[in-house]
């Protein structure tokens, strides 16, 4: 299959002018299209990324490390990791439950659930944060009760965690739903007829089947949890050393004209993004191959591989 695709362009190259595939473009068109894409990519992505790192290291490595190891920076890093460490596992459980039920069962309000999962995508993160302020803030619905019981949510760590969970909850579910739907229930049914219990079927068959999509979802969810700015900003209150996450800290430093420190922290987030992209690329490749391998014409591929 793939070998045929690879061979086709070669054969065109060896017999130069005469034949062009219907979908192939003129060389000039190709150069213009590819050039445009590359130009945009460098202008808006590559140059800024380089700028971040060069700006961060502008005053030397010593200043760089000092800016990311002072107590406030460490606190921001800790808070960001904490928010992610709570949000990601929660979304993992939610994502598995939601995708499983959407892919496997027919139930009333299924469409509603599918639509609501996308809500955080559709709503501006600032609004998401506002919702929590309206709910838990001093003037909010539950505000008086919370104050009476001395529970702090807004302008405190719980609010930041809540906002992060809300903003990131579609990510795992969205990755899993199509994979679960495509992979069908045959293997699960086979496991059940062989005497496996529900949990055994889930952990031995379903989870391994969707593991790449699951990992991919977790990686993306994690990146988003660590990078979230809008919703967290609204509920944070910007108390340095207490309720400031890394993205917020970048903003605080920037507003204080501490550009080098600001870019140093930003470079950490950028690194995270780069690592995520690489991980996504690696996992994405495998996830795409997996269903294909199952459908591939039986004998040939395997014999060679073995």
């Amino acid at each position, binding site marked *: 299959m793939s070998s045929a695709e690879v061979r086709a362009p070669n054969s065109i190259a060896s017999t130069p002018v005469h034949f062009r595939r219907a979908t192939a473009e003129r060389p000039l068109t190709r150069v213009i299209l590819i050039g445009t894409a590359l130009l945009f990519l460098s202008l808006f992505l590559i140059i800024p990324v380089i700028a971040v790192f060069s700006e961060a290291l502008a005053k030397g490595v010593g200043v760089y490390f000092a800016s990311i190891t002072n107590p406030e920076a460490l606190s921001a890093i800790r808070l960001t990791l904490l928010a992610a460490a709570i949000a990601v596992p929660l979304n993992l459980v939610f994502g598995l439950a939601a995708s499983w039920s959407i892919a496997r069962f027919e139930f009333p309000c299924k469409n509603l659930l599918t639509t609501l999962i996308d809500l955080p995508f559709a709503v501006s993160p600032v609004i998401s944060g506002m919702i929590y302020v309206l709910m838990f803030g001093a003037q909010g619905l539950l505000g008086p009760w919370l104050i009476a019981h001395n529970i702090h949510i807004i302008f405190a760590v719980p609010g930041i965690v809540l906002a992060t969970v809300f903003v990131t909850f579609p990510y795992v579910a969205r990755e899993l739903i199509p994979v679960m739907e495509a992979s069908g229930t*045959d*293997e699960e*049914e*086979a*496991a*059940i*007829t*062989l*005497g*496996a*219990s529900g949990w*055994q079927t889930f952990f*031995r*068959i379903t989870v*391994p*089947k969707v593991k790449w999509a699951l990992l991919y979802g977790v990686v993306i969810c994690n990146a988003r949890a660590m990078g979230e700015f809008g919703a967290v900003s609204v509920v944070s209150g910007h108390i340095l050393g207490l309720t400031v996450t890394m993205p917020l800290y970048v903003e605080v430093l920037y507003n204080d004209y501490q550009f080098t420190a600001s870019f140093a922290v930003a470079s950490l987030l950028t690194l995270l993004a780069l690592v995520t992209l690489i991980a996504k690329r690696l996992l994405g490749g495998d996830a795409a191959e*997996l269903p294909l*391998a*199952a459908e*591939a014409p*039986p*004998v040939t*591929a*395997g*014999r060679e*591989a*073995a």
Partner: protein
Amino acid sequence: MSIEVRNLRKTFGSFVALDNISLEMPTGELVALLGPSGSGKTTLLRIIAGLEMPDAGEVHFDREEATNRSASERKVGFVFQHYALFRHMTVFENVAFGLRVRPRKLRPPEAQIRSRVEELLKLVQLEWSGKRYPSQLSGGQRQRVALARALAVEPRVLLLDEPFGALDAKVREELRRWLRRLHDELHITSIFVTHDQEEALEVANRVVVLNNGKIEQAGTPEELYHNPATPFVYNFLGNVNLFHGRIEDGHIYVRGMPIALSPNGHELAHVNGKDAVVYVRPHLLDIALSPNGKASFPATVKHINAAGSKVKVELESQWGDPVQVELDHERYRELGIQRDARVYLKPRENKVFIYQI
């Protein structure tokens, strides 16, 4: 183990998949559920396996009610149409799965699992494949792994859903014969679903023909082929030509021409003035070059296919209906017919199927 279903009913929305099905399958039989797609055969199999719940009716295993037993408690071996092998496990682990998921107390020791799996892989002639993954096997090999996996838990019934459906013709025939032999060896009650009449007649010792969620007929392959109960069965079990006629004074007339024959046990002597449909299998029609006897229908040869054990001739009757005839090569040479030849058709034996409307 014997299986009995009583008054099964199953609907999917407004679609009636099974409509009051009752059926008994004695121990050790190899039963084929035969029918076109949408006839309910797979649904029936899945209900027996416990993968689907009936809306009404009962399933009995060995005269014990099993309707409410879960699929994992029923001890059935189920082989899926697309094999449903666990793609992330090796062939060995696939076959071992049913033993490994047993509760600790019932789980055999590792050495025993190992020898059991090896024994099964040997049975399906795939001893070499234990370390491979399912994607590295051909369709026929995967099917045999699926079978070994189902047999590993020592099921009391083996259920196979279109077991050869996704295989090419040659492998299919091989596997069919192999399944037949396996059944003769193991004597495990087996039910398989198929839409291929040839497969059902060749492999099974009992065939149940389903249509629109109802049982049309159940019996041995011979019974079904020679004494079909309904036009559907006659039609489904092989190619057939169909003539519309009338019964007058116990004789059948097709387009005003009498057919002198005594058909399938129908008492026609007292029937008068009724419409009827006459079904004749292609190999029971003969071609003549000139009209002889009373029942000779004029027809024109449209196409001849002599590549095969029989010569297949397609004709068009005088009234524009397509007719198929199968001749042996000797008779074909004798006749020397060619395309566009004008010939006469005659039922060869008095084996026609007549259905009164």
